[in-house]
């Protein structure tokens, strides 16, 4: 029985994985320019922050909620960290810690608003989305901020994600995000936090009546989301040269889309982080690949939209079948 069940779960992740392979093959065949090492680097650069956000946002999604504040949050945390380095002279390491703390705190606030005060997740995180966007602009005094770039002191942090060995760039970040994904996969599957977050999304009332402290685990879900948005902020700062205030809105949609393509149930109660990880690459591949075959970035959004509809339909049809 168990084998069959894991087989089904793996199958879903496997399908998404095969989709990624298929997309890669397709773009490689269709465009000569795509078959370059630099393309891989570009895809990787784009993927890190989305993957990290997606890992985090999977937890609120699995409780049956959503976190819309991660996109603008990311930019806000990044700007705050950058400000500390540029204008206060903080070392990069310390600024990174503060950045992570900042995101975690916003996550806790979301969790309290939703888990304790009973605000609808959509509304609560929309509010923190607006608040972080405003805060980000204030932190940066309305100008773009760059974390240390090559040659400047503190630029070592960029090599966490892209190691430069004698001119050859190695996308080291992939290993870190993969490790984080595996770690969170285990948190979801094999720890109390994960088990109860799934229980909340699956049947909140039953969870309450089982004596589970639902408020606490609700807060945990959003805290994880905030924490990973902040990790995404560091990845974003490392990959891109300048962070602009007022941006970030819309990032969360790519992350949520990736999670859902990867099998996180749009209505909560089910999902896997490895699935999320693979799902994000579908989106990243479309985003970087489509321009190579002559389709504008706008087309990428349309295609992604349809892919999302498809994967949500799969989820719904599956649920309907289970009901019978």
């Amino acid at each position: 029985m168990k084998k069959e069940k894991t087989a089904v779960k793996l199958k879903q992740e496997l399908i998404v994985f095969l989709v990624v392979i298929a997309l890669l093959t397709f773009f490689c065949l269709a465009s000569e320019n795509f078959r370059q090492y630099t393309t891989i680097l570009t895809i990787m650069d784009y993927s890190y922050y989305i993957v990290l956000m997606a890992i985090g946002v999977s937890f609120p999604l699995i409780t049956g909620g959503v976190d819309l504040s991660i996109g603008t949050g990311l930019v806000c945390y990044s700007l705050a960290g950058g400000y500390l380095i540029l204008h206060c002279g903080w070392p990069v390491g310390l600024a990174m810690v503060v950045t992570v703390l900042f995101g975690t705190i916003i996550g806790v606030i979301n969790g309290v608003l939703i888990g304790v005060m009973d605000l609808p997740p959509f509304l609560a995180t929309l509010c923190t989305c607006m608040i972080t966007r405003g805060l980000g602009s204030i932190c940066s005094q309305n100008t773009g901020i760059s974390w240390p770039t090559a040659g400047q002191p503190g630029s070592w942090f960029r090599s966490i994600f892209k190691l430069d060995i004698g001119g050859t760039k190695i996308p080291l970040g992939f290993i870190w995000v993969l490790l984080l994904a595996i770690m969170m996969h285990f948190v979801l599957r094999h720890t109390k936090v994960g088990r109860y977050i799934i229980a909340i999304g699956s049947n909140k009332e039953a969870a309450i009546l089982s004596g589970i402290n639902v408020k606490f685990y609700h807060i945990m879900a959003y805290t994880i989301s905030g924490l990973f948005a902040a990790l995404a902020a560091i990845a974003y700062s490392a990959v891109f040269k300048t962070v602009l205030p007022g941006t970030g809105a819309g990032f969360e949609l790519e992350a949520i889309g990736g999670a859902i393509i990867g099998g996180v149930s749009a209505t909560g109660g089910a999902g896997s982080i490895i699935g999320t990880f693979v799902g994000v690459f579908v989106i990243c591949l479309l985003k970087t690949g489509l321009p190579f075959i002559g389709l504008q970035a706008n087309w990428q959004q349309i295609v992604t939209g349809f892919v999302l509809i498809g994967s949500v339909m799969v989820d719904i049809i599956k649920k309907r079948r289970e009901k019978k």
Partner: protein
Amino acid sequence: MGEVILQMKDIDKSFPGVHALDHVSFSVEKGEVHALMGENGAGKSTLMKVLTGIYTKDSGTITYEGKEVEFHNAREAQAAGVVIVHQELNMVGHLNVAQNIFIGREFKKGIKIDDKKMIEESRKLFEKLNIDIDPTATMSDLTVGKQQMCEIAKAISHDAKVIIFDEPTAALTEAEIQDLFKIIRDLREQQLGIVYISHRMDEIKVITDRVTVMRDGCYVGTLITKDCTKDDIVNMMVGRVIYEEPKTKSMVSEDAPVVLKVEHLNAGKMVQDVSFELHKGEILGFSGLMGAGRTETARAIFGADPKESGDIYVNGEKVVINSPEDAVKAGIGYLSEDRKRFGIVVQKTIAENTTMANLSEFMKGIFINKKKEKKIAKELADSLATKMPSVDELVVNLSGGNQQKVVIAKWLCKNCDILIFDEPTRGIDVGAKNEIYKLMNKLASEGKSIIMISSEMTEILRMSDRIVVMCEGKKTGELRIEETTQEKIMNFATRDVG
């Protein structure tokens, strides 16, 4: 009394596994108030749903105003003049009174809704009914009683000839009930046929002309109200043959230690000053009619709903229970009447459901020890004789009886000594029922103490050592099984303010 306006004859209706209506006949005359009485599940609501087209009858005829009719939905019935005033009100709180009364059939002036005319018509309607309500008032500002008057006015405005009141006084104050009765009497004067469904014996005596009693989907008889006594009606309601052996003697001695003591518990209208004791090894039955406040009492004790006042003692020690978490810590487990909604997580495995309340016991560092989880779940499932392919099976694939066993296993896993079973056999077939009964007896003999809320008289009589009877949020009686009769329970369960 006048001519017959509505005649239902030989109405038969079956649902899978249940013969809900067994050739029931029922008639209403012009200018009478006809009470329809019976225990929970006697078939009153089903009969009315067949009448108004919500259910399709299997056989039988409905004659209305001399013609045979068959309504296909509530709207058709309404259009013909057969209207139900529901217990729960169907009003849009933000709209005003007139807008509510004419909702779905607004007067138009061109493309614009003619609010003025609607207000005018409402005013006329209220005058006719002698009701003092401002048609321009916002609905949510009115008291429940006033809202109900609006519901009645709405029914009348459909040009109703037969009005069915389904427990109309459940939410009303004494004064509002008097106002309602005045309106019902007026309607009777105007030669409408009125069906009055209620559990309140004293109201039946005051307002109705005839009483029809149903039991287990069958028609029992019709009495002229003023010629009969309350006892006559109660006897008709409960005069059932008990197939299963009722418990005649409790094996629990009266001085068995008290494991749970509840004192002066208050939680809203449905739980008023409830006190009782639960002894070790005992099954304490909670009996009463629908809406008596039994589930609410259980939920308040368990901390699932807030309570206003009252003390709870577990094993002689006072405990503070503000959430289910506190209750579970105190060793109380609650098995909800609605398993699917409150009891189990259907998309999870048996093992995962079993350990849900006690996961801390299964941790190895920060990880869940799935091996141990499965082992314990398997042991519990075996001891409860849960039928399943393995503990990795999803709970959704189990039958109702086996799902119930998973919930029991959950609480046994947590070592709860006090178990509250809320309608333990609802939706479970007969064979599985017996198994659940056996299991409950076994648990009690092993020293667990059980509160069993049940709406089935046979279940109460078969399982309980003592019985607490509730009515409208108050405890109205307590019986030892040796002295219990169906009549005694029913007398406590029906309100008689006298």
